[in-house]
Every structure is written in C-alpha cells, then in structure tokens.
C-alpha cells in the first residue's frame, strides 16, 4: 500500500474545543509531515517528525502538537480550536528527510471550526 491515509475526511469542531487528526502510512517512511492549506494559499508546513524527532515551525510552535507512537502513525492535535484553524490539513510522508525522494500526500482532513 503506497498511500497515506487520513481520518476523518471532514471534521466539525466548536471554538475552544480540542481537535485530533490522524494520519497513517505503511511504506515505512522515515518522515511524516503536517501541512495546513487554506483556499488560494500555499500549503504551510506546521511540523514534521523525522523518526521520533519532532520539528515544529517557529510561527506555529505553540498552536499545534503532534505525536508519533510508531513509524506508521502520526497525529495532529489542536488544544483549543479557533475560527482561524478552519482549513484543509494535509499529512505527507517521505522515505528520508533530504534526498531526492517524493513526498506522498494523504487526501486531507477538512476542518471547520464554528
């Protein structure tokens, strides 16, 4: 299976409530990424795991958490959702962190915060 799976496909959340998004891959990829995509904007990297090491982008450091309990699974956690979190969240994986290999993206989770 060469796909990245994301659940759920759609998520409705209330302002102030937590949100947990799930991603999995069975390609034994070293690195898993989470991107946020808003309409008419470029996908924005939020964080990534290289093996067990979490790297969070400086401007989203406090807003998002993640866990990777094993190689196949990675979650994205929002402790208290705000309206500005409404977006498509894309998970991706790659076999390594620097060489020329492709990324594989999941279908995304569309989050709507109300």
């Amino acid at each position: 299976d060469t796909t990245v799976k994301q659940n759920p496909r759609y998520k409705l959340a209330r302002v102030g409530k937590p949100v947990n998004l799930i991603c999995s891959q069975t390609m034994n990829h070293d690195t898993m990424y989470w991107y946020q995509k808003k309409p008419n904007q470029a996908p924005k990297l939020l964080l990534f795991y290289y093996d067990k090491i979490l790297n969070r982008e400086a401007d989203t450091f406090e807003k998002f958490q993640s866990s990777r309990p094993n190689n196949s699974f990675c979650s994205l956690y929002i402790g208290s959702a705000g309206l500005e979190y409404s977006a498509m969240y894309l998970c991706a994986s790659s076999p390594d962190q620097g060489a020329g290999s492709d990324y594989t993206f999941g279908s995304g989770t569309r989050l709507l915060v109300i």
Partner: protein
Amino acid sequence: GQQVQQSPASLVLQEGENAELQCNFSSTATRLQWFYQHPGGRLVSLFYNPSGTKHTGRLTSTTVTNERRSSLHISSSQTTDSGTYFCAFRGSALGRLHFGAGTQLIVIP
C-alpha cells in the same frame, strides 16, 4: 520573503490548448517537485525534477537549476486537467518543502 513564485495565478483554456506554468525559486538547492491538487483536495506528485527535462504523458517539466526556474507544460489540455498546480522545492537537508501559491487551471470544453 517569498521563496517560490508561480505564474500565472490562474489560467483558463479551451480544451485542446496548451498550457505553460512557470515557477521561480530563490534557492539554488532545488530538489524541485510539481504537484497537482485535485478539486477534492489531495496533492499528487507529478514530477520530481531537480534539473533537466522530464516527460510523462502530456506533461513536460523543465528545470534550469542555475537560473532558478522550472516550467510545467501541458499539451492538448483536457477538462480533467482542471485543478491547482503547485511548484515546491526543498531548501534544506531537513526536507521542508517550500510551496508556491499555485496556478489554478480551468479547462473548458
């Protein structure tokens, strides 16, 4: 600053016409990729093309590394080509992909 610039921002074609999408990037460390986003949201890798020219079907990607630019040519466009095309490159060893804002392509019958 803006590390990846794509043009045009949007493009409307008649079916059968050709399209040329442009990407300019600020770093010489390329590892450039082109992605296609389905209207439903999934990003699909079209080309990993750090330099030179690659073909697949009606698509051709050409990257000129020392000029920091890449192009995606779509020949004989079809309505199913409609969607958003992103250019992205990796500027560091940590694998971060820097995306452009995308070119939205609409192909009308």
